């Protein structure tokens, strides 16, 4: 089993606004020396409360921003050391699904346009048959290509976003809170879809969530973050059965309570 994504000692700092004239404010360390790997076809869950640096890590994995220290290797290549052209050529291999299904699709573009975007950007032809097949693969109809995002529900939009993310047959999918904005019942459908796609396509998934309950159903491995620091990491089953840290325990209790609350409602 080969390593798909290798995150090595990655650190990201953000400057904080100065409060006093003669005193430089210490920078905010959003991600602090994080190392973790994802193997081909496996799912890594990243959990942590709000502000723990999950999205910052995702942005670095997607090469939207560069780390201040450490490196991100995709199939052995340091993505932050690539030229723009090389990075562009590699982009079809790793794609992303966003949290807000209403914000991640351009309201002025048709479904077909959005789904074909990664193909066009990579200089490939956007074969209509491929678009149709991809839409069907995520549970939509081939005829939906000509419709616009506002004609779909949140769950359907997330399916469109997933179609866009898998149309280039990537090896890695980064999902940042991809189901958090959805209703509980829809959430399960989307999670099932992701698992099916993983099986079909051998996708590696970086699954980010503040909700341990969601993560536990999906992930092989787990990374628990708090204020940018790794609190715990290892196999998901191991951590969920026997959390080795007070913080993980708190997250777990909160997740169980929420689950019970939803079950009662």
């Amino acid at each position, binding site marked *: 089993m080969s390593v798909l994504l290798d995150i090595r000692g990655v650190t990201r700092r953000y400057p904080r606004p100065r409060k006093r004239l003669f005193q430089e404010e210490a920078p905010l360390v959003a991600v602090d020396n994080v190392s973790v790997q994802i193997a081909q076809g496996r799912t890594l869950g990243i959990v942590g409360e709000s502000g723990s640096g999950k999205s910052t890590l995702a942005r670095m994995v997607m090469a939207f921003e560069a780390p201040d220290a450490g490196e991100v290797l995709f199939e052995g290549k340091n993505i932050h050391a690539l030229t723009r052209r090389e990075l562009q050529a590699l982009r079809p291999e790793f794609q992303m699904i*966003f949290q*807000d299904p*209403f*914000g*991640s699709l*351009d*309201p*002025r573009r048709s479904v077909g346009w959005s789904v074909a*975007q990664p193909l066009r950007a990579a200089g490939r032809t956007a074969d209509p048959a491929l678009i149709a097949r991809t839409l069907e693969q995520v549970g939509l109809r081939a005829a939906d290509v000509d419709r616009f995002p506002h004609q779909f529900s949140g769950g359907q939009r997330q399916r469109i976003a997933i179609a866009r993310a898998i149309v280039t047959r990537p090896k890695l999918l980064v999902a940042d809170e991809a189901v958090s904005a959805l209703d509980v019942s829809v959430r399960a459908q989307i999670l099932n879809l992701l698992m099916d796609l993983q099986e079909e396509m051998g996708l590696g998934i970086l699954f980010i969530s503040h909700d341990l309950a969601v993560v536990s159903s999906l992930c092989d491995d787990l990374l628990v973050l708090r204020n940018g620091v790794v609190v715990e990491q290892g196999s998901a089953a191991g951590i969920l059965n026997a959390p080795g840290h007070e913080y993980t325990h708190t997250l777990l209790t909160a997740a169980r309570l929420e689950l019970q609350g939803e079950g009662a409602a």
Partner: protein
Amino acid sequence: MTTRAINLRIGAFLVIVLSAVALLSLVWTPYDHTMLSVTEKFRPTSAAHWLGTDQLGRDVLSLLMAASVNSLAVAFIAVGVGGAIGTALGLTASACGGWVETAIMRLADLGFAFPALLFAIMLAAAFGPSLSNAILAIAFINVPIFARVARGAANQIWTRDYVLAGRAAGASQFSLTVEHVLPNISAALIVQATIEFAVAILAEAALSYLGLGAQPPMPSWGRMLNEAQTLMYLAPQLAIYPGLCIIAAVLGFGLLGDGLRDVSDPRLARGRA
């Protein structure tokens, strides 16, 4: 109906009437507006001349109609050219960020600080007064205005997830700008263009009034006003008619622009929530 809706309707009505008259004058005016007549000077309103004739015996209605085309054409070209250049600069600033953005916006500040009238006078001094120099001056004031509006609106669009998704897809800054940013700020640009149209019509009238714009025999509301000035006691209507035209045009585009902004802004805000 709210006051805003009424404003929008009044604005739209004035703009439509004005545009219709301008279009009509291209194919038909009651008289040839260049036709002089010594015997027909200073005629009052009559069945033959609805708005009378001027000091040279020309039909005033025909003059006003022909001048409306010039007013609209000047505004259209000036706002179009200045707006396009300004929008391109604003989009570039927003797409590049960093020192490029700072440099472009400092230039825009400089453009703002530079009075358009002064620029028009300089152009006239250097190349002689002409309508094309007036257009250039009006286009010039539009560049920094559109640069600011485009950059402000574009910066908001760049933070949207769909732009990030485009980046993840591998699209270049240029195609992200053309495919996502520009279409999504077009409403803001159209509103601004409508408002600047009003300003441009007023500016053209002012420059022509000062002799820096349309040159005889080209009809212009501003120059008609200027020529009527010395005849105020003799024939005040010759000043009143072009004045009313200017007011109607400026008010029409101004109300339409304001109304469009009121309609488009809150809806966009609500659609996002």
